[in-house]
């Protein structure tokens, strides 16, 4: 079972839900793997007090020129759709930050003067905060393109575990890479027009990807039913409500998972899992 946690809007409580869900399941002796795919700003390790015991570097190939072979024909610059190579007199200027590693230049160079070399774009850290297996991606600072690091994290998926994916905010490429092919996506939102606007975008994105979803309303206030009305109209289940309470915000601020600051939440997160499992089966 692969469950993604996403949101559209940032700061709605994705990590809060993902970590508390993982901890609650682990306490039931279930094998749990938490993948932190918010590689631009990974935070799950803070809540799990996880010390990584292994680290891998994520590389992407970028072109390197062999001036002994280069004929200065300009073919590479011509085929590059991302303006990552420019020919200036007798120098090839390569801009690694905009390179998409498509390989066009080195496949199509008539003189075989370009070859791919590895460029570091991030790291994947693995750790065990018993009994949860945590895998966190971390985009290298100043690097533009995060999906390859998200992919590298997802390559660590352990099919024997319940896999929980903590996704990035938004609804474009990094999120799509994090949620594609999962069995279910829990969308965490808040009952404000900001929350609704970005929830709608995330739901539409998930429909394109064919991933079923349900909604957790965080910072819930009785009577503020903007999300409920949308979910009802769209036939989306409201899976859980987390009330707007200063003590929840304060515990979160200190990095204490909700199920630890208030253990009565454990049962509710297990119920959330059961509901998701039920939705996946149906």
């Amino acid at each position, binding site marked *: 079972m692969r469950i993604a946690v996403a949101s559209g809007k940032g700061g709605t409580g994705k990590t809060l839900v993902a970590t508390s869900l993982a901890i609650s399941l682990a306490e039931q002796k279930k094998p749990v793997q938490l993948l932190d795919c918010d590689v631009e700003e990974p935070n799950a390790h803070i809540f799990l007090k996880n010390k990584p015991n292994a680290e891998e570097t994520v590389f992407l190939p970028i072109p390197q020129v062999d001036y002994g072979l280069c004929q200065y024909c300009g073919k590479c610059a011509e085929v590059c759709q991302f303006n990552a190579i420019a020919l200036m007199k007798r120098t090839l200027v390569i801009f690694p930050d905009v390179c998409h590693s498509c390989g*066009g230049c080195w496949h199509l160079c008539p003189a075989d003067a370009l070859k791919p070399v590895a460029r570091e774009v991030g790291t994947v850290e693995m750790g065990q905060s018993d009994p949860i297996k945590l895998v966190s991606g971390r985009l290298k*600072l100043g690097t533009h393109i995060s999906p390859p690091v998200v992919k590298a994290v997802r390559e660590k998926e352990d099919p024997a575990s319940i896999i929980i994916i903590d996704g990035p905010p938004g609804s474009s490429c*990094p999120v799509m890479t994090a949620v594609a092919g999962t069995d279910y996506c829990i969308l965490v939102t808040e009952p404000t027009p900001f929350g609704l606007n970005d929830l709608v975008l995330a739901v539409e994105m998930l429909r394109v990807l064919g991933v079923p979803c349900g909604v957790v309303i965080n910072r819930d206030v009785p009577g503020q039913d903007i999300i409920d009305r949308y979910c009802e109209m769209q036939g989306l289940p409201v899976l859980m409500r987390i009330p707007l309470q200063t003590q929840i915000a304060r515990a979160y601020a200190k990095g204490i998972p909700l199920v630890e600051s208030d253990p009565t939440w454990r049962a509710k997160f297990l119920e959330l899992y059961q509901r998701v499992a039920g939705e996946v089966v149906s």
Partner: protein
Amino acid sequence: MKELTIISGKGGTGKTSILGAFATLAGKSVICDCDVDAANLHILLQPNIKETHDFYGEKKAEIVPELCTNCGKCEELCQFQAIQQGQINPYACEGCAVCYHVCPAGAVNIKPHLSGQWYISETKWGPMVHAKLGIAQGNSGLLVNMVRKKAREIAREQSLPLIISDGPPGIGCPVISSLAGTDMALIVTEPTVSGIHDLERIVKVAAGFGCVSAVCINKYNLDEYNCRYIEDLAERLQVPVIGRIPYDLTVTEAVLQGIPVTTLGKGDAQGPIQELWQQVGNLLGVR
């Protein structure tokens, strides 16, 4: 002309609420929403859309089935696993055109792809440029570039001295496009352990752009210990903390009403936001 961009690293720290308030305090400026992925500023500023433009930001490959000989060359060389059994998956295709160049049968076309729309609007507080990335589309950095380019054109045409931009969360491609060439990055953080972790990363990214950086701590009284920690961290990273905004439910109330918090006429956040704006003005040298 000066440009201010609000960023945060961590999402949901209050960028849009603060920028919406700034729009009301700035006198006339060009207002720009660079969070094209999940734009929210329009909810507060209620822009009246004057112009809508299609955005063709990327290209996508297309296979002509009648010409395809199923040789598999394109599939073998596609780095994005976007071709399977002679079919292109448009969501995986990045438009690199390798398939187009290597196809021996000339069966691949590369076509511009509609990936969103951008708008020029009027608000009560000045012109606004914003955009909507299409559903499940990539390449938001290019759309951010487009929105910022238009904002600069409008500022020049109307002789407006300032552009204020609401940035996206994170540190990746749309954030970098939002920072390139800006005069000042205002980093909005919150006193949570996640906020602290993300602050250090975004400060280092912003430092690579040679702009003035400053930090504002939103909801500072949520955790006074973490707040002091942020102040120390900012000092170590050599970025000034120029504002502290209290945790105030009237900020949410303004969002619910769809208005900037400064026009609500109450709440503890009002004064500190006005002081923050003064500090921003001083650092930018716009007054």
